[in-house]
């Protein structure tokens, strides 16, 4: 089967990344088609430009075509619960247990990706739920991006969010060395995220290697503070059902808020919040609403002195 020459286009696995439903209308495709390979185009069916799995950088063009999506970077060391957080959000959305205020779920081009991160948190026949398997540092140098589109009833417009699902090793390497080759993915997140969630793992901070966990987190907080350039950051305590020594908790808070006084703080857990009834975990919905409320700073145009309401004569010198 013939392949497209554009590096971001994966025909015939997915559809044309330029959005042509019919490949024959795509200049890039037609330009390379030779008479002998003209029949290679799958003429009797339409390919889709998204595969459903977590998006990579090359897939972004399709999602970002409407407007630049808001990228939420989920940062934290290995086993801090980054993937579990994403999976839990998807499950809660799927149960209709999330009150998003004026927003409503409006679609996703990475449904299979969401299902994959949420899959292990479900009961399947004969198997209880478990935490998602470790997110591997794939060969790719960019994180898997999970897409979520919401519709704002009040504003009458949709917005797209991308959540990063990246391995903890990337952040550990990046915290130590900003330009580390193994931390390129984390650097991408730091550069492109509109908001960063910094996950503090209460289990690790109460375990045998408290010192190591605290050191790594403080290092990561410093790196984030140095790189964030005024963007919103939230400290997210994961596994909040686990008790922590006040001193340890205090030292993390001190580091975090001395560096970034405006940072938000959340505590989340997937553990049952009460003994009975339908569970929504702890703090998960609140955190999701916070991330969805992130906006890019608006541009404020300077007020201009005008002589009238006619836009053609908007600028001028006041005669009186």
């Amino acid at each position, binding site marked *: 089967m013939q392949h497209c020459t554009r590096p971001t286009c994966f025909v015939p696995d997915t559809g044309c990344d330029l959005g042509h439903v019919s490949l024959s209308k795509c200049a890039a495709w037609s330009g390379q088609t030779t008479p002998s390979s003209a029949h290679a185009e799958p003429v009797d069916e339409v390919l889709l430009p998204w595969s459903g799995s977590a998006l990579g950088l090359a897939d972004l063009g399709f999602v970002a075509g409407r407007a630049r999506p808001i990228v939420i970077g989920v940062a934290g060391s290995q086993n801090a619960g980054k993937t579990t957080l994403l999976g839990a959000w998807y499950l809660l959305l799927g149960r209709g247990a999330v009150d998003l205020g004026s927003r409503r779920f409006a679609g996703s*081009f990475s449904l299979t990706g969401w299902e994959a991160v949420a899959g292990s948190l479900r009961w399947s026949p004969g198997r209880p739920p478990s935490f998602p398997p470790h997110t591997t540092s794939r060969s790719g140098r960019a994180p898997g991006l999970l897409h979520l589109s919401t519709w704002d009833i009040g504003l009458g417009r949709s917005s797209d969010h991308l959540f990063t699902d990246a391995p903890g090793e990337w952040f550990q390497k990046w915290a130590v060395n900003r330009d580390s080759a193994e931390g390129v993915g984390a650097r991408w997140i730091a550069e492109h995220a509109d908001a960063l969630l910094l996950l503090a793992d209460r289990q690790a901070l109460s375990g045998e290697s408290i010192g190591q966990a605290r050191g790594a987190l403080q290092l990561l907080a410093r790196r984030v503070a140095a790189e964030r350039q005024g963007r919103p950051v939230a400290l997210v305590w994961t596994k909040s059902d686990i008790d922590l020594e006040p001193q340890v908790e205090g030292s993390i808070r001190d580091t975090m808020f001395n560096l970034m006084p405006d940072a938000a703080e959340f505590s989340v857990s997937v553990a*049952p919040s009460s003994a009975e009834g339908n569970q929504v975990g702890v703090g998960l919905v609140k955190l999701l609403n916070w991330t969805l409320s992130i906006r890019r700073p608006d541009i404020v145009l300077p007020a201009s002195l005008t002589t009238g309401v006619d836009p053609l004569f908007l600028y001028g010198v006041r005669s009186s």
Partner: protein
Amino acid sequence: MNSPANSILLLGESGVGKTHFGAQLLKRLMKGGGRLGMDGQATNLEPFEAALESLNEGKSAGHTATSTYIDSVWPVVNALGRRAELIWPDYGGEQIKSMIDSRRVPNDWRTRVRRAPAWLLLIRLQQTRVRDDLFSKPLADLRSTSLDNRDVQMSDQARLIELLQMLNYVGDVTAEHQRSHSRLGVLLTCWDELAFDGTPAEALEERLPLLRAFIRSNWSTPSVMGLSALGRSLSKSERDIDYVSQGPENFGYIVMPDGLHSPDLTLPIQLLLGDVQ
């Protein structure tokens, strides 16, 4: 001439009851007395011949072959005397499943999507489920369970959302145009099996909340109705005597958006075609 403006894209996976609804709708149109009536005779009753015969005998109809896709043109007239031609398809529901699984939309389907201004999505809630997870059925200690890789199984509502997203894409309309111009009706089939006290919209919200949110975000006035095409469950082999004596056209009902029942099975169609006729 067939006006493409009056065709309905009927969407439903296998086993939701497309053929039963088609056959019962046909009976109702021919009997008259509903919002829509038949104005003349359908071009081709073949797709429903076997189903009509089974229902007349008080039995349920068989399965429609996978590869079948037959359009039948029904001239209909409403109470005001306005005429339209309804293009009603009958096909094997596996075609929908194969589209979702292969993530490819055959060109025939693309043409149908682009021609139909109104879509009717049939869902049988018994066939769909949201699996238990750690929120609905918590586990005392999740940390003790082993980490393992398991196969990704798409949940039923994710599959239906993906289907609608795929059809939206091949339909080649902008989201804004779709929200304001195209119509979507959701019909919850086999309503009698559900034993649900409440409106169809509430049933959809309870069983497939993510799909309901998706539909409300992408269509401005989606309608959700319930349908019991047969009124009761029929067996494939044993006859239901009431059916035989009273005729299948006296069975079956629609659950309107407000939860009231109506024997007029043409209502969902009338609602969908309302503006485009």
